[in-house]
């Protein structure tokens, strides 16, 4: 009992110190996007729940080692911990409650961050997918038509991973393609992620978006940025590849720019116009949830001989 009280006191002190120390963990805070809010909360929750558990094991271990360190020649001075089922149940019960709490919190937060608030009715997950050949649900939500995100519609952006670059397609602007990811601040953006060759993973660290790009599969994710910002040379606001995809995996980065809606619309209209003017837009494959580069179906028809 004496030991239990001492351990308890040390444990409380160490836990408090650890919880104070959590403030120094370099989590980028506050979250710069809406769906990142829940993620950041959960990270802190796990640190706060974990710290006392962590402290308890350390304190008990060190306390036990110091107290029961063999001193003097004669053994048998100590009374072993009684082997009671009470302690077993208590231990198991506390573990179980902590697990239930963490899993419950995680499930709730997952549910919260899965659907963007404004378009929840469309029933899209962060991570729905469709097999090749089946119609994707996301086609029905006014993907090809409609004006950007203004009337409560999300801005759809297709993210195409390939070795070793990212391509971003804006289907609501004629399906033009861009090497840079430009998005309006404050608007809901839905990413439709696919890959042409191997598994990649689309990761925007600063805005808490990550989803694998799997060949032959359409995955979706969403984000709503809270602040503007462009890629900086110090490593802020870049699109990375997070799944080993071969030789230049580490170099598979794309620039991004979160701008005001007005600037975004101007940029998008300009890109669409210039790609239409150069004939690029016409030669791109029609928008599809997934692409198979080796199959001819998605390729433009072979050029015909011109009659003189």
């Amino acid at each position, binding site marked *: 009992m004496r030991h239990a009280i001492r351990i308890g006191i040390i444990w409380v002190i160490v836990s408090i110190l650890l919880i104070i120390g959590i403030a120094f963990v370099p989590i980028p805070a506050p979250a710069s996007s809406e769906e990142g809010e829940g993620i950041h909360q959960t990270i802190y929750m796990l640190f706060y729940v974990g710290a006392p558990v962590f402290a308890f094991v350390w304190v008990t271990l060190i306390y036990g080692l110091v107290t029961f360190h063999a001193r003097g020649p004669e053994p048998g001075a100590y009374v*072993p911990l009684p082997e009671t089922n009470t302690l*077993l149940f208590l231990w198991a019960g506390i573990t179980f409650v902590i697990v239930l709490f963490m899993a419950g919190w995680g499930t709730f937060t997952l549910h919260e961050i899965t659907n963007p608030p404004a378009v929840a009715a469309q029933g899209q997950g962060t991570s729905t997918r469709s097999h090749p050949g089946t119609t994707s649900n996301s086609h029905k939500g006014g993907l090809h038509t409609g004006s950007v995100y203004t009337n409560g519609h999300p801005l759809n952006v297709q993210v195409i991973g390939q070795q070793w670059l990212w391509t971003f397609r804006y289907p609501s602007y004629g399906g033009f393609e861009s090497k840079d990811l430009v998005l309006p601040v404050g608007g809901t953006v839905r990413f439709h992620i696919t890959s042409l060759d191997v598994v990649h993973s689309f990761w925007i660290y600063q805005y808490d978006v990550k989803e694998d790009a799997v060949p032959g599969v359409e995955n979706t994710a969403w984000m709503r940025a809270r602040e503007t910002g462009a890629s900086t040379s110090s490593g802020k606001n870049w699109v990375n590849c997070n*799944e080993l995809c071969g030789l230049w995996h580490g*170099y598979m980065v794309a620039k991004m720019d979160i701008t005001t809606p007005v600037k975004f619309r101007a940029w998008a209209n300009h890109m669409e116009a210039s790609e239409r003017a150069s004939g690029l837009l016409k030669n791109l494959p029609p928008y599809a949830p997934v692409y198979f580069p080796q199959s001819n179906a998605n390729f433009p028809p072979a050029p015909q001989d011109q009659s003189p």
Partner: protein
Amino acid sequence: MAVEVASLPQRRSWLARPNALWAFVLGILGFCFIVWVLGQDGGLLNMTFGLEINQVMFLGYAVAVFLFFVGLGVFNRPVKWLLGLPISEEELLDEYGAGGGVGRYFRYTLDHKVVGIQYLVAVIIFFTFGGFLAMLIRTELLTPNVRLTDPETYLTLVTEHSVTMLIMASSIIIGPFGNYFIPLFIGAKRMAFPRVEALSFWLFLLALVIMPTAFFFGGSQTGWTGYAPLADQMHAGQDAYVTTWALAGSAATLAALNIIATIFLMRAPGMTWSRFNLSTWSILVGSILAWLAMPIMVAVQLMVGFDRSFLTGNFIPVQGGSAFFYENVFWTFGHPEVYILAIPGMGIVLDILPVFTRRPVYAYRAAVVGLCGIGLLSWFVWQHHLFMSGLTPGLRPFFMFSTEMISFPTGLIFLAALGTLFGGRITFPSAMLFALAFFPDFLLGGFSGIFVSDVPTDVQLHGSYWVQAHFHFILMGATLFAFFAAVYYWFPKMMGKRLNETLGKIHFWLMWIGFNGTFITLAIVGIMGMSRRYATYFPYLQGVNVTATMFAYLLGISMVPFLLNLIYTWGWGEKAVENPYHSRSLEWMTPTPVPLENFAEIPLIVAGPYEYQPNARPEAILEPSQAAGGTVAGT
């Protein structure tokens, strides 16, 4: 059957006998001949048989493995049996290495003690090799740009390091200590299937030797996961990866099968399930996992091999395959694999704690339930590796819950460990230090694991250095520390000499500080947004990376006192006393060095291994027929 070593006739010189030298010579020659002579562009295989490079590679590896076993003499006995040739008892004894000498460690020897030592030496060699690769990786990461290597070499180093370490670590406890000590733990004279046991070692060795051959064929840039559409694209070096896993998987399956059969069938009378020591329990659970999970990996790698050489397109979406298929099947193996590594370590440390606290292990039954529970749960969590892959998003809450549930049986292990310390009389030799370090390290592993098991936080941490730090906490912090605890603890039994304590403690503190420094720093690198398997990174991450590398060098240097200690003790160490720790366990009741048949008579087990109290009777009666009034029937 007492064996008089002197009575064995001196046989042919070692050069004239099948041994590892001939095995390697034949294997290497066969491989080189197939790949570089017959298989070259315009060569016989290429022109006449129409084989392409991957087909040539697999043929080369198959021929090399076959010739290796010919050189090793694996087929001698079956061929004699086929031809009806007689086999004398002397020959049989010789197969068991009864003649003694160093040569038996280089032959296809059937004695489980020889196989245990072979495993131990191989594990240490490949651990050093893998660690050296890790040092190269950390050196490359000193600068944000690629300086030391190029991306191709860097990723090959990553693959070589990870595959070597994972295969080595899958057998790091089960191989050396499982083979050496399971018969001693349960009172058996040998393993159930001695030939399978020897075969498992040589397959394991071949797997680890074949992996570095990838360096000669463009390397393998897939990481240890070898995700499929990427693996299908790789150079011929990827065929080494496929072959390695096929051989290593077979080796682990066979070793596990042998250990399971031994534990089930060869127990001494009175060795009831609740008298097992926790090492036996944990090696049994680990073996069951290996026996069930490893064939999955063999199968999935064969499918990759078929994709590469027979154009089957199992995993290539354009050909109707699926990338999800590989990921799913791979992790169905991959998650139990983690526990194949971790569970045996838990049992080992729980076995060492009571010896140095001089009291029974606390809550033995809870610890057993914990070990079995982790083994069972490990089959229901694999999709937590695929939370961000887009596969069955609706099942993510379930896999989050099942993953976090693993802390439940793990908690029982911690209860047993912490409870054992209380009221004990603790001493701190090197073995105990390593065993104790298991718990804070495993705690860090579990703690960081909760973050990646939770789907919302996994969005940020998946695939980052956080994950890398997490599994190193488990694989290295737990398994490696348990391994070193076992080496220090059982060295007097295996070698008859006790490792130097001063060097052991220097080794421990260097390794513990280096290890924790490296991987706590790398966890921070991960949370700061650095992705795994990058040869380059943003300059703002350089400070933490350099810190991690410095700690990693310390970790690397910590192996020097250990290796020195091994060499010093082996050569000049003093002979250890019998049972230097006054352990109650059965393995310490046999003489050192352990005779060929372990026990003169099958012992009679009369008590558990942990009853450290005054006047407790010993665990076993070694010669029941001699004991006064001893009856074999009752316990």
